[in-house]
């Protein structure tokens, strides 16, 4: 039996684990098949305090994991598949294991939203990507599209222009959502062009991506566009749906009561899975700390002795 089971191993989950272990609570981190979270997909993080020259995202996550483990956190690199939060102790299951916990902290973060069109899923890593800094060098002198109209779409496009010959930003609306400064940077870049009111209907190619089918959503006209890569930047979706019995808001984020509490007593939440507003590594870490302190207080009020 664990005092705390933390689900997720991004900045929120690992920070929570550092706090609960240091409070002498027996802690398990169900880290997920892809441990470390969103920062594993980025390069230099320049706004996490304490690193004056910046730090590589994966290096930051490796350090957080080491810190949690040094204080005694157990880490299982598997996904949470189902749980029972209706009775205590809570039950948390992965594909191969089952655990019991007196309390649970959910920190499953958010994942890239994909387009969900035919031809996309099977070509992720073969011309379909959501991570320009990871994959841009493979597209030297190629023609690419970026799908999306927000800050991340502009950033992806700008990174890609360092290698690609031409980048077309495809957006379903008639204007961009991105901040002025990034819009301007993208518009000033001679390699970037825009296609508005347009959606991607299908991604084509045999071994790798060779083109897309586009639809103008005002005229309904369908065109084929030969390209070498599709970068998807239409946002992130919280990983919240897998938890039965937990209240979720209209946008799919876990609903929060009184800071880090969910509608189930003893189940706490931290990070991008509930926070639609800030979505930063430092705020996720801060929420992780808060959830850990709340879990500790709640355990103290429920159980006289820790065992």
């Amino acid at each position, binding site marked *: 039996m664990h005092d705390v089971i933390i689900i997720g191993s991004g900045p929120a989950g690992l920070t929570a684990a550092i706090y609960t272990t240091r409070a002498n609570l027996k802690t398990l981190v169900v880290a997920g098949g892809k441990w470390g979270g969103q920062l594993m997909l*980025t390069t230099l993080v320049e706004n996490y305090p304490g690193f004056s020259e910046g730090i590589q995202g*994966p*290096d930051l996550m490796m350090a957080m994991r080491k810190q949690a483990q040094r204080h005694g956190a157990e880490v299982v*690199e598997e996904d949470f598949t189902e749980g029972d939060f209706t009775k205590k102790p809570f039950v948390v299951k992965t594909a191969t294991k089952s655990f019991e916990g007196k309390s649970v902290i959910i920190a499953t973060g958010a994942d890239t939203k994909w387009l969900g069109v035919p031809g996309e899923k099977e070509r992720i890593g073969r011309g379909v990507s959501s991570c320009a800094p*990871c994959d841009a060098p493979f*597209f030297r002198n190629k023609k690419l599209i970026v799908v999306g109209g927000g800050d991340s779409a502009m950033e992806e496009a700008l990174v890609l222009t360092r290698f690609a010959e031409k980048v077309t930003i495809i957006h379903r609306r008639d204007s961009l959502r991105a901040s002025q400064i990034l819009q301007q940077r993208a518009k000033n870049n001679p390699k970037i062009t825009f296609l508005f009111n347009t959606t991607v209907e299908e991604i084509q190619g045999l071994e790798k991506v060779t083109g897309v089918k586009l639809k103008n959503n005002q005229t309904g006209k369908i065109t084929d566009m030969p390209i070498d890569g599709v970068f998807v930047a239409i946002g992130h979706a919280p990983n919240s749906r897998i938890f039965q019995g937990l209240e979720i808001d209209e946008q799919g984020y876990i609903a929060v009561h009184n800071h880090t509490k969910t509608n189930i007593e003893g189940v706490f939440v931290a990070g991008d899975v509930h926070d639609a507003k800030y979505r930063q590594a430092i705020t996720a870490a801060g929420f992780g700390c808060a959830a850990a302190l709340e879990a500790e207080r709640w355990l103290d009020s429920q159980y006289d002795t820790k065992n």
Partner: protein
Amino acid sequence: MADITDRTFEQEVLKSQLPTLVDFWAPWCAPCRIVSPVVEELGEEYEGKAKVVKLNVDDNPDTASRYNVMSIPTLIIFKNGQPVKTIIGAQPKENIRRAIDEAIGS
């Protein structure tokens, strides 16, 4: 872990007697730094049963493009000169272990 190049790929990988896992990586790839130590450990664990090598995609673009590597880290397991398993992106050790076991057993 041995470094393979475009020049040595055929001899070291395609002609290898053992199933061979190739770690496609580059110095600029941060997630590669998570995967490389893991496959290195597996290389030691599987000594005599499977071989584990790495290939820098910046210095060896021919091999990378021949196998359509467009995202790294990518791990490809070769057996009898053929790619039999591809793992794209950082993955837990157990998944990689399973892929090697399957390649050995197949």
